[in-house]
Every structure is written in C-alpha cells, then in structure tokens.
C-alpha cells in the first residue's frame, strides 16, 4: 500500500535483512561501522559538505556519470579525471544489469571484463564489487564520488555505495518509475525509494549528512511544469524519510529565460510545500542539465552544448553543472573524453563565476507566473486525489494522466502530453492531455505556438516535433 509516511525503525530493519541477503556482498555491510568510516573521511569528501562549500564560495562544479566494468578501470578513470579534468566531483555509474538487479549476469560481465581486460559492461557492477571495492575507489581520490544512476530498486546497490563511503544518491521516484524500467509498478518503486531514503535519513540522524535529490524524469521536449511537479513529489517522499540535504535538479531546454525561471519556480514552490507540510531545516542545492533527447554527434556542437549547460548553471546559481561528455552520442566515453569535457567546463565556470549577467526580468516575470500556476494546478490536484497524501495522490494522478510522460519506457503512462518549441526555443504544451490546466494556461501555450507558426509561415506537425527534439543535436535552438 502506498503512503507517504516514514518507515518505522522496525519495518526498516526487517526489510533490511532481506535486502542484504540478495547477494553475498550484502554481508559486508555493517551500518555502525560504516557510519564510523564516514566520520573519519575528510569533511569535503562528503557530498553535502562539498555542495555547501560550493554555495558559500559561489562555485559551480561539473558533474557527470562515468562507469567502467572493474574497480581497477574505474580507479584509473577517476584519478585521470581528477587530475587532468580538474574535477571537483567525480561520478560513478553502475551498469544496467546491476540497475535491473541481475547480479548474476553482472557477475559474468565483470568476470569476462577481468579476463579479457576489456570493459564488457556499460558501468560498474557495484553490488558485485562490494563494500571493499567501493572503499578502494573512495580512497583513491580526493573528490566526493557521486553515484549517478536510476533504478527501480536500488536498495542493495545503495546500501553498498553508502557503506563504501558515498554520501549521495538520487532516489528519484518518477525518473526511476517511468524511465528506468518498463514494467514495474509505482507502488514497488515507492517502496524501494522509501527504503533508500530511510537509510539516508538514518545516516543523517547519526551524524553523516546524506544528500538525496531529483530531476523528475527525462523530460526532453516536455515543458518544465510537469517535471517540476514530479520533482517536488519525489523530494517530499525523500524528506518524509528523514533526508535533510537535497540536490534540486532542473532540465534546461535551451531557452535561458525559461530555464532560469523553471529552476527558480522549482525551488520556491518546493520551499512553499515543505513549509505547508511541516518539513523543517531542509538544505537545497540547485543543479542543472541541458536535457537533450540526442546529444550531438559533432564534437564542435558538443562543446557548444557544454557551454550552454554551464551558462544555465551560472544564471540559476547552481552548484552542480550536470553535463554529458563530448562523446556522449557515440559510446561509453574514454577517460580522455571525460577529462577534456571537464576541463572545458571548468574554464567556462571560472570565466563566468564573477560575471554580472542576468536574464530579462520582464520576460522572466510572465514566464514565472504561468509556470507557477501550472505546477500548482498539478500538485493541488495530486494532493486533492490523495487527501493530503502526495504519494497516494500521485498514484491516482498517474492512472488518470494528471501526471504524464510521452517518452516513458514504462507502460504505465498515459502518454498524451506533447511539447513543442515556440519561436524562441522555449518548450510549450502542444497537447495538454489530461493535465488539470485552466483555460488561461492552455491559451497561453496555444498562443506561443501560433506565434511560431506565424513567424515560420508554416503549421506545426509531427515532423516539427521530431525536428524540435533533435534541433540542438544539430546545432540549432529551434
């Protein structure tokens, strides 16, 4: 049964036994010892601490996923990127078999990779490497290592990552439900995520700050309000279980006014709902990614994408500049790809750090007003559905298409909503599906689309949708 309610310690530890027995490395996890281990790490190896440091010093850190099949390869990668990429944060991507809890297949991949000396997995088989493997990583570098992945059930994997010395994760309800699994039910994902957050809360309560966070879902081509609604729901799940430090992520689409506004709206409304629902002392760290459906194949355009991402980060005051490497479209990036990308991002950040630039305030005000209305419409409907319980409401909202995603991998999505760019590259609702929007909102979007049709002198169709999705990849905004 879905409920947004903190797991009791009893429930939690009962479930925990089961989780740790899913693979033999689960035995290595000793919570008390792990808490001690964290306390003995240098303070800035803790993710939340490092984020706070960035905030206080007005710094922006590049971050991205990076994963190799073995601990040795991963160490080589991380050390290379730390040194040659001037990295402030390192990444760790588990492979997709691990994400799907197929530890047996992952073990085969790991063994084959070790035998052949060639990476046979698209990331690190974290569970198979165990706590000691992760600690070797953590101890091999100076930066915090940020696990970066989505999964329907990350419980065991996160247990091992945390015990290994990692101090953040993204138990991102809608990302994981819609994007990372085809058949799982919302209830299952809620349960696994409550578990992970309860675990993070436990560490936090025992003096080890753990940073959770969410981006909502992979929203390329979909207007920001829908993503914002799902982000806030995910974060409300997290704080209920005791998480105190949040990385509040936003997906930019390329129109800077819209992107900056959506980050602001997200932070403001989150604070509002936290206050309303009685959650106190929550620390927030904004982050941003340039959310493309397809990264450019051309290296030049790729650098331009990194640049836009960094400019967005600067304009929203992000601590995390969530980028992809310039080899993203091709294959698993090499260590050189990652380092080159990080170095560029670092130079851009350095160049932008102290600049006094901003988006047009008048445009921003209108945009913010509309977006707030949209998010409130969705969230209020969700709360109404759930009689005040945001997760109960979310389940109903998914069923009825009040929460929707046209590009979900999961079958459980109405898939009616569609987005399209306006003449300035902001994303508008082409189809609002069952979103509970007022006429005013619907008209606003229609008008923006009509304006584009007028300027371009042709009407919008399915081809336009696809070309919009791929525009940035081809070096255009619209």
């Amino acid at each position, binding site marked *: 049964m879905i409920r947004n309610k903190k797991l009791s310690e009893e429930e939690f530890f009962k479930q925990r036994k089961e989780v740790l027995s899913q693979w033999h490395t689960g035995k290595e996890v000793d919570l008390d010892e792990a808490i001690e281990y964290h306390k003995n790490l240098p303070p800035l190896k803790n993710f939340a601490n490092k984020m706070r440091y960035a905030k206080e010093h007005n710094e922006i850190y590049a971050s991205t996923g990076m994963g190799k099949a073995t601990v040795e390869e991963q160490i080589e990668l991380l050390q290379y990127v730390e040194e040659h990429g001037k990295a402030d944060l390192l990444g760790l991507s588990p492979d997709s*078999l691990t994400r799907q809890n*197929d530890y047996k297949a992952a073990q085969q991949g790991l063994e084959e990779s070790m035998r052949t000396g060639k*990476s046979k997995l*698209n990331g690190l088989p974290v569970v198979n490497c165990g706590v000691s493997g992760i600690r070797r990583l953590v101890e091999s570098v100076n930066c915090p290592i940020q696990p970066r992945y989505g999964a329907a059930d990350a419980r065991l994997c996160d247990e091992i990552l945390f015990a290994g010395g990692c101090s953040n994760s993204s138990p991102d309800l809608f990302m994981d439900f819609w*994007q990372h*699994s*085809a058949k799982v039910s919302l209830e299952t994902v809620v349960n696994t995520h409550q578990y992970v957050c309860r675990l993070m809360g436990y560490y936090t309560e025992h003096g080890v700050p753990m940073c959770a966070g969410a981006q909502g879902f992979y929203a390329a081509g979909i207007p920001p309000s829908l993503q914002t609604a799902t982000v806030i729901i995910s974060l409300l799940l997290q704080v209920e279980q005791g998480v105190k430090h949040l990385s509040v992520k936003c997906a930019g689409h390329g129109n800077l006014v819209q992107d900056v506004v959506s980050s602001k709206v997200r932070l403001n409304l989150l604070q509002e709902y936290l206050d309303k629902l009685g959650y106190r002392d929550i620390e927030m760290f904004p982050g941003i990614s340039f959310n493309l459906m397809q990264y450019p194949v051309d290296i030049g355009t790729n650098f331009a994408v990194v640049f836009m991402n960094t400019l967005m980060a600067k304009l929203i005051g992000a601590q995390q500049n969530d980028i992809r490497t310039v080899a993203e479209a091709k*294959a*698993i990036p090499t260590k050189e790809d990652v380092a080159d990308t990080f170095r560029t991002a670092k130079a851009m950040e350095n160049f932008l750090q102290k600049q006094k630039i901003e988006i047009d305030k008048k445009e921003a005000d209108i945009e913010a007003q509309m977006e707030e209305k949209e998010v409130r419409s969705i969230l209020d409907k969700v709360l109404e559905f759930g009689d005040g319980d945001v997760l109960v409401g979310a389940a109903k909202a998914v069923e009825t298409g009040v929460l929707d995603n046209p*590009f979900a991998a999961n079958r459980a999505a109405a898939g009616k909503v569609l987005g399209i760019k306006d003449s300035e590259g902001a994303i508008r609702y082409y189809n609002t599906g069952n979103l509970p929007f007022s006429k005013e909102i619907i008209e606003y979007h229609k008008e923006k689309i009509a304006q584009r049709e007028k300027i371009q002198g042709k009407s919008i169709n399915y081809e336009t949708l696809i070309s919009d999705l791929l525009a940035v990849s081809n070096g255009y905004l619209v």
Partner: protein
Amino acid sequence: MEAENRLQGTAVTGVIGEDVHIVGIRIIERALMDAGIKVTSLGAQVSQEEFINAALETNADAILVSSFSGHAEILVRSFRDKCIEAGLDNIILYIGGSLLLSEENWDQVEKKFKELGFDRVYPPGTSPTRAVEDLKTDISHRRRK
C-alpha cells in the same frame, strides 16, 4: 508505384534486454505506421521470447529490435536460431541503435550483426524514412517468394 504504396505488412518492435532506451524505436514505429505498416509495439525491456511470441501471434513479416545499452551482442545471441525453431522461418530481422560499448568502425559492427542473423543493421541517427523504405522493399521480396 501505386501497388507498392498500397503494399502493407506487419512488424513487431521493441527494445531488447534490460534496456530502457525507448525513444529511437518510438520514432521508427510512428514512421512505419504512417507508411501503412501494422506495428505491434512491445516497448522497452523485451526478451527474445516475447519478440518471438508476438511475431507468431501477429503472423509478422518482420521483427525490429532496438538496443542502446551497448550489450546488444550478448542479448541477441542465437536469436535467429530461436526464430527458426519457433517456425518463423524467413522472418525479416532488423536491429538498430547504439550497439556496442566502444566506438568501432561501422562496417565491422554491421558485419558482426549480420553474422548474428540480422538482415539489416542501423546506426544511431538513422532516418526513419530509410528504415521504412528498406522494410517495404524487403517485405515485398519476402511475399513474392
């Protein structure tokens, strides 16, 4: 020309294995439907068995497999054999997406997957039109046999 345009076919589509990258195949599906081909869309995370069963049920001309995880090589092993075993003798098999983990020479990739039993192999960035044209041609050949 006229005849060819009216020519129909049926295809089963999906993303194989643990893979959730759904967008590429969604775009292809849409283009196939627009071209008058009947599509049975299995979505993401589809097993070999699910593909075969759907093809049997719908009496499909073709199975279109998508894969972006980089694990394709492992995931499609003996797929053609299993098709034949199941009685899908001369079914058309396509595969497309980001097939391998490291950037490799495309000719080599194509060769590898043709040896694994696929009739055609498509790289990232394939235009839907190309896939549709190919499939129409192949179906008309198959039906003439």
